[in-house]
Each structure stands twice: as C-alpha cells, then as structure tokens.
C-alpha cells in the first residue's frame, strides 16, 4: 500500500491556550478557502483551511452566508405568521421546524392536537428524515467520488418529494404542520404509491450498499478517518447519528417519545468506530429503519379523524407569558425550538437549536487539524451539517 507520512517537525506548536500561532509570511503555510463557492462544501458556508503541504494544520468554520435573521423576523410576526417562515430555517429537512414550532405554540397556548394529526405529523417527519438521509448518503458518496450513488439517491429522494407534493401541496417547503394540527388528510391511494417509492428506495439502497460499504475505495478513505473520541461527545454537544456511531445509543424518539413514537417499534442502531465509515453506516441503517417506520405508520394510523383543532382567531392570537423548549430527533441529531412568549400577540424570542450548530462549528474545528485536504469534504459531509440551521 502506498502511504504518505508528512514531516510534522516543522509544524507550529500550539500555545498553552491551545491556539496556533501561524505566521503565514514564513511561506510554509497556505491559506485555502474551502467554500463558499466550492464543490466540496455542503451548502453555502466555508472553512478557512491553513495547510502545510496537503495536510491541514488549522481550520476555521465561517458561516453567515445564509443568515436571514429568522429569530429576529419571527419576533415581529404574529404566531400564525411565523408558521410559513420556520420551515426555511433548514432547507433539506424543513418539517422539523414546523413540528417543533407548532408543538411549542400548542404547549404554551394549551391547544390539543387531534390523534390523526399526530400520526400524519409523524409520517411527515419520517418522510423528511428519509429525504435528509438520502441527501447525506448522496453527499458522502459524492464527496468520495462515488457519483453514481449520488445520482440514485437524488432520484429516490425526488420520488419521495412527489409523495410530499401530493400530500402537502409543495415539494420542498411543505408548510403543512400548522399549530393545532395539519392541513389535510392523506390523498386517495397514497399508501400504494408510497409503497412503490419505498421499494424503489430499497432496490437502490441495496446497490448503494455494495458500492459503499463493500467497496475498497470507500473503506480505505473512510475507515479510521475523522475519528471523534466518544469522550468528547458531551463536551461538544454531539447528538444523533454522529453520537450513535460512537456507541451512544441515544435517540430522542426513544428516550422521550413525542407524537406517536411510543406506539411504534424501531431499533436505535449504533456503531463503535466513530469514524466516517461508522457514521455513514449508522445513517444507512437508520434509513432502512425509516423506511420500515413509514410502512409501520401507514399501517397503524387511523383511517379517519379530525386533522385540525379549532384555533382562536389567528389574526389576533395572544399567548400568555411563558417559555418552553421542544425537541425532536432529526436526521442529524437533537433539533429543538426554544420559545419565549410575553403575553402579546408576538413571540418574545424563538431560538432554534440545530444540531449542525455544534457539529459544524466547534466540533469540526476540533477535528480538522491533521486531516488531509482531500478528506475535509468527506469529513464535513459525514458530520451531516446543513449551514442554514447554524446561522438561521
């Protein structure tokens, strides 16, 4: 095997506070901007790399390219007006925002949600998880040069978008989970069409498994790369599949079940290696689990029932003073909304706790030093971060 070991003797020593003093003008180092316009970046963000040869000595995450000031905009919108904009916080998996926001408002305003609506919400969230995992699988394979898997995953994801479209009326931003319930029932024949999509997905996933987890290229480039010490998980706020890949069997769906997860059966998959390979494998298994969950939900859910409870007149809806935090298990980890109300018709403060916030900032910056430039993209994608939820 060909292997290259860089000469580390000329690297700078970190100072006592852990900071690197890098003098660019020595000519030993090169600043390399990985993004925002770069094929190896997820979304619109950038990592400022300092490299020596092809090894990265330091990396700083820069975000803010997608900052729209959601948390500020929400403060000047009424409670119903916040509903259309929350989903924009995270583009690839918008439904979690809708659910968390709706649940937070329902808790503070004391609104009951019909049973049927809870089932449909769960279905939507699992469909969103399916989409998100598909993007992650496509992304990681793309970052490692396995373009064909990316093509399959995007195609399968698109089939799921068609199901989203017929159920919710939109492809990407569904705006379907209103505070108080959901907008509509399942359309006629939805289950059968969903089953077709799931079968297609399973077919492609079986192939993807061969191309990824049984491929020597993939294994060589991912095994042992991007290792996160499980001891760091708590210090860096690592949740979701990234933590499960290091043996932490934690999943909000299981630990504190919300919606109807307590009536569903599913396994929380873990791995122990905590490297890129393990993280991808956990996602792959979770995706299979999600497919089974969607089937299970469609089988178990009631066939009729109200989907929406009566709201007070939303044009002047006031919610008493209070604060709450609603969390759920998104495809990337713990996703949550912290809502503070002050008795007026507007939220006092909404804080979105996106898992990417911790993963892409402090954790990524911690992991990057010492990696190879060509692995940075794979490392980032394997953490499965979506920039819009970092900066909101």
């Amino acid at each position, binding site marked *: 095997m060909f292997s290259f070991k860089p000469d580390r003797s000329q690297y700078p020593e970190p100072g006592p506070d852990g900071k690197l003093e890098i003098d660019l003008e020595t000519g030993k180092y090169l600043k390399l901007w990985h993004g925002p316009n770069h094929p190896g970046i997820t979304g619109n963000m950038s990592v400022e790399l300092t490299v020596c040869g092809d090894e990265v000595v330091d990396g700083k995450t820069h975000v803010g390219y997608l900052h729209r000031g959601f948390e500020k905009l929400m403060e000047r919108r009424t409670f119903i007006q916040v509903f259309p904009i929350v989903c924009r916080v995270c583009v690839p998996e918008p439904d979690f925002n809708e659910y968390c926001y709706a649940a937070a408002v329902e808790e503070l305003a004391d609104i009951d949600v019909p049973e049927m609506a809870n089932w449909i919400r769960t279905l939507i969230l699992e469909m969103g998880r399916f989409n998100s995992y598909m993007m992650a699988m496509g992304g990681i394979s793309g970052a490692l040069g396995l373009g064909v898997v990316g093509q399959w995953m995007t195609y399968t994801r698109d089939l799921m978008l068609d199901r989203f479209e017929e159920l919710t009326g939109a492809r990407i931003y569904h705006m379907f989970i209103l505070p108080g319930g959901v907008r509509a029932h399942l359309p006629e024949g939805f289950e059968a069409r969903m089953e077709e999509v799931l079968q297609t997905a399973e077919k492609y996933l079986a192939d993807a498994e061969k191309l990824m987890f049984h491929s020597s290229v993939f294994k060589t480039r991912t095994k042992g790369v991007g290792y996160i010490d499980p001891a760091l998980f708590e210090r860096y706020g690592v949740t979701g599949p990234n933590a499960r890949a290091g043996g932490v069997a934690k999943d909000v769906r299981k630990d504190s079940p919300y919606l109807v997860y307590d009536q569903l059966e599913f396994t929380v998959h873990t791995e122990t290696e905590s490297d890129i390979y393990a993280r991808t494998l956990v996602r792959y298994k979770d995706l299979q689990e999600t497919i089974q969950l969607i089937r299970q939900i469609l089988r178990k859910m009631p066939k009729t029932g109200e989907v929406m409870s009566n709201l007070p007149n939303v044009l002047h809806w006031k919610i008493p003073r209070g604060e709450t935090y609603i*969390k759920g298990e998104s495809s990337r980890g713990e996703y949550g909304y912290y809502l503070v109300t002050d008795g007026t018709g507007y939220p*006092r403060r909404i804080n979105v*706790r996106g898992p990417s916030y911790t993963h892409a900032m402090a954790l990524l910056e911690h992991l990057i030093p010492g990696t190879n430039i060509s692995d940075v993209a794979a490392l980032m994608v394997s953490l499965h971060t979506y920039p819009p939820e970092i900066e909101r």
Partner: protein
Amino acid sequence: MRELLYRLKDRYHLGTPTFQRDDLTFVTVKRDELRAILTELRDVEGFTHLTFLTAVDWIEEGLFQLTYMINNREANQSLGLRVMLTREDEPGATTGDTIHDLWPTAATYQRELNEMFGINFPGSPRVDEEFILEGWTDLPPYRRDFDTLAYSQQTYRERPGRGRSDPKAHMQETLYPDYPKPREAAHAHKEEAK
C-alpha cells in the same frame, strides 16, 4: 427533579422553579453562583449535555436573560437555568461569564451572543471575531431596540408600485366622504381640549 432542586436550594439561591413539563424545568439562578451550579450539575448530577445557550432581551425591565439549557441524558431531564444580567445599552458593556472550559461548544454560543446581543464573554475563545455578520456597524440585531424593518427600509430599495387601501377607509372615501372620520373627530376633540 424536585428533589434535585431541594438539594440545591440548601446551598444556592434559586428562584421559584417553573415545572413546564415532566421533563423540563426552568429555574432562575444568581449570576455568581451559576458556574458552581453548572459544574455541580455536570459532574455530580449527570447534566452532561449543554443543549443550547441563548439570551432573551427584556428591554422594558432592563435585563438580559441568559438561558442555559442542560440535559441529563440518562434521566431524560432538561433544566433551563436563567441568569438575569443588567442590560447595558452600549454593545459589549453587558458581560456574562464564559463557560467554554466546561463545554467547549459554548464558545460558539458565546460568540453568537456577543455578536447578536452585544453580551460579551471575556475570556471566551475568538469571542470578538465576526461570526455570522460581516462588516456590521449597527446595534446588535437581536436586541429589541433594533428594528429590522426600519433598518431594511433605510438600507435596501424596494420595488416601487406597491400601495394599499384599507377597506374601511376606502369605503368611507367612496360611500360617505363627507362624514367625519370617527377617530379624527376624537382627536379633534382632544386637541380642542388642549
């Protein structure tokens, strides 16, 4: 959760807790005891996960509220610790105590709070670096006294040609233009009274 708070109550000054849900409690703590409480909760009580750290601007009361949401994963309990800081108008004049050594990830939150609320955390790594905004010279935007629409109107151009009519006013104009507008009549009274 109640037992835990009883235990803490002996040694620390705690406000009245809010039991929001079975697994979520909020309690106000004193600023100078925060660090000790957080350390104890993290190391002794199993609240090892810092879910988030954020601020709420209570401008009317002259306070910033810092909310430290910590989570005990084994017991599935979340505890929101509220710390009230005196709100200074000058960005950066309000300071909080950094906890980046307890949770390195807090450094990011503290950077954001410094940028978005003007709450400084001396000693936190890179706390003064630009985080989300670039070349920002105005008030920290998440403060309540920063009006985003006014700023937007004064900074960016909108496409012209928009204009709206209020149904009530429009009907008055078209159907009974001579009738005095009730609000104006009232103001006229008040002004006459002055």
